[in-house]
């Protein structure tokens, strides 16, 4: 017995395309949601926070304090909004979340610098969110060497920090300005596709089941593979359209560089989309109603956001979590997208992330077809 026939696939496709066209609300959502999310998150998410509110405790009246304060302001990480003489007052500001940092310049600071006593500046950071303060904290380290450079000249030259025995030169490649959008916008491509594609297919069979049309479909000679192709193909077009839309906005609105081949990216995106549709279809063979399908979709969506390297650094996770992340197609797709767009990667560079997606696609597709029950038992 042949496992599929072209005429039945053709019939399924015709039916699905008509139904998709009639379901205007869903279609509008499939286009509207990606755009809204892209603009919202593309502009909103910033991993390098600047202008953090800072309180300053100054008990020194010497000239060097002023140099330190202007150096802090110039770094653009700190906005000194409060100046106080009281430590409890500063703590209260931290506790109330009104400042993220308290910087204390001790009494006799300038005097001690001149004496060569090596005074300390105390910085208290609100570390409840470590990621938010880390960039600012690291900027502080350079401050000690550079802030007083212009002041410690002439007779005070001996107080200036000595040049270190060697220099560390860091080149931030691919995104030298640490522009978060270059990271987030390509990442959103993966997240948005994961959400909409899995959701759209997860209800495909479930809806037929709920409406009672599934019984009819099964009573006809349609076979599992044909039904799957019919259900998945229209969504591949939707996914491709979404991807093109997001990439267009990335290029012309967020000015994300596109160094690599667009054709290669389109190819990888097609595999990614199809793999996601396989997941959604598997869900729809299991779920008995649309509510269940939605719950299962979110069960897949959460790790895709949190373990893929989209929200948090992938290498920061423990090994077992990284392995979980490696199973998800989005982890590989994010590397491919960022690689092609920002690094100009080609076939050879993306291959290590391409084959796991292909493997995932085949496994998901096989599960979907074998899970499919041709009877109502």
């Amino acid at each position, binding site marked *: *017995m042949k496992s599929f*026939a072209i*005429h*039945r696939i*053709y*019939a*399924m496709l*015709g*039916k699905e395309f*008509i*139904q998709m066209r*009639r*379901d205007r609300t869903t279609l509008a959502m499939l286009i509207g949601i990606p755009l809204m999310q892209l603009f919202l998150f593309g502009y909103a998410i910033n991993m390098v926070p600047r202008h953090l509110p800072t309180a300053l405790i100054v008990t020194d009246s010497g000239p060097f304090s002023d140099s330190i304060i202007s150096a802090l302001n110039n770094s653009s990480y700190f906005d000194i909004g409060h100046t106080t003489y009281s430590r409890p007052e500063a703590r209260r500001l931290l506790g109330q979340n009104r400042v993220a940092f308290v910087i204390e310049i001790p009494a006799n600071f300038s005097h001690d610098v001149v004496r060569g006593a090596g005074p300390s500046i105390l910085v208290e950071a609100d570390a409840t969110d470590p990621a938010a303060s880390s960039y600012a904290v690291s900027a502080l380290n350079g401050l000690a060497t550079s802030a007083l450079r212009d002041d410690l000249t002439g007779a005070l030259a001996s107080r200036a920090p000595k040049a270190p025995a060697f220099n560390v030169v860091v080149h931030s490649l691919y995104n030298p300005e640490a522009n978060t959008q270059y990271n987030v916008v390509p990442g959103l491509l993966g997240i948005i596709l994961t959400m909409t594609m899995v959701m759209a297919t997860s209800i495909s069979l479930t809806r037929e089941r709920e*409406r*009672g*049309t599934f*019984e*009819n479909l*099964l*009573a*006809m*000679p*349609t076979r599992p593979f044909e039904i799957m192709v019919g259900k998945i193909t229209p969504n591949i077009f939707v996914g491709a359209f979404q991807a093109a839309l997001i990439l267009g906005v990335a290029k012309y609105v967020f000015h994300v560089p596109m160094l690599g081949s667009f054709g290669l990216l389109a190819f990888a995106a097609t595999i990614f989309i199809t793999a996601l549709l396989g997941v959604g279809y598997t869900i729809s063979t299991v779920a008995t109603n649309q509510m269940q399908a939605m719950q299962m979709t979110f069960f897949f969506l959460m790790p895709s956001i949190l373990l893929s390297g989209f929200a948090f650094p992938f290498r920061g996770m423990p090994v077992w979590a990284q392995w979980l992340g490696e199973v998800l197609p989005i982890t590989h797709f994010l590397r491919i997208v960022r690689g092609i767009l920002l690094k100009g990667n080609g076939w050879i560079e993306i291959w290590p992330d391409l084959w796991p997606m292909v493997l995932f696609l085949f496994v998901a597709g096989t599960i979907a077809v074998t899970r499919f029950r041709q*009877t*109502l*038992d």
Partner: protein
Amino acid sequence: MIGQPIASRHTNPSDGLAMAIDVKGLTKRFGKKVAVNAVDIAVPEGQVWGFLGPNGSGKTTTIRMLCGLLHADAGEGTCLGYNLRSEADAIKRETGYMTQKFSFWEDLTIRENLEFVGRVYGLSEVRRLVDEALEKLGLAARQNQLAGELSGGWKQRMALAACTLHGPKLLLLDEPTAGVDPKARRDFWDEIHKLADGGITVLVSTHYMDEAERCDKIVFISSGIIVARGTVAEIVTASGLITYTVAGDGARHLADRLRGLPGIEFVSFFGALLHVSGYDRALLESALAPYRSDAKLTITETLSSLEDVFIQLQQQAGA
């Protein structure tokens, strides 16, 4: 096998006829509940058989097993000469199944639904076939209307058109006329008989007695077991039920007084008439004797109706 003796009391006389459906011992369990218990059905080609039974008696489950939508837990046989278990695909290609609940796509038009069905079955010249089917069933003017917008009667016509489009040899209809007005029901049955004249075999489940009487033969199923089968006359005779009608003023008031008397199985209203049924003529006569003298009442023996017999069968099976 459980229930086998009961079923075998009503064996099928095959008379050397070619059978469109010929299954034996068909059984289906859902968990611990036995939904269909050792059902034998043999329907000769070109006949219209009615499938009757109370709600939840196993009609739908049996029909679903016949068209391959459910795996039978036990039993074997053939549909259209194909093995029920191993050749489900072949059976599906030559069978039309109309579900109890409307199961076509409500967001497709009538024409789109029919064209989809035509393409799934791989028919050539789908458009022309659909045109013909629309014309034949009087749907041509509504062909571009969404199926979901149709009234019950039109939906049922559309469903019949769709499940006969591919020229099936066997039609399985699961309560096709539930909720359809009398005119549409009559038209529907005319269509069924036209199809049967053309050689199609039809198994149709129904709750309507008048529809049962339009069938060549009837199978009555109760709690998953076949309790009667044959022509209407055969079933009525075999039941041994004797029925008297009481007519006239005050007949209605008799019901409560007669119920529960020895020999009276049940008393039911047919308009102004009262049907009094039982198995023992002498007991019935003696129960009715006190009212014979009442000048306003006319008491006559009548043929038991199919409904009388079915209610009795249902009560017996439930007891």
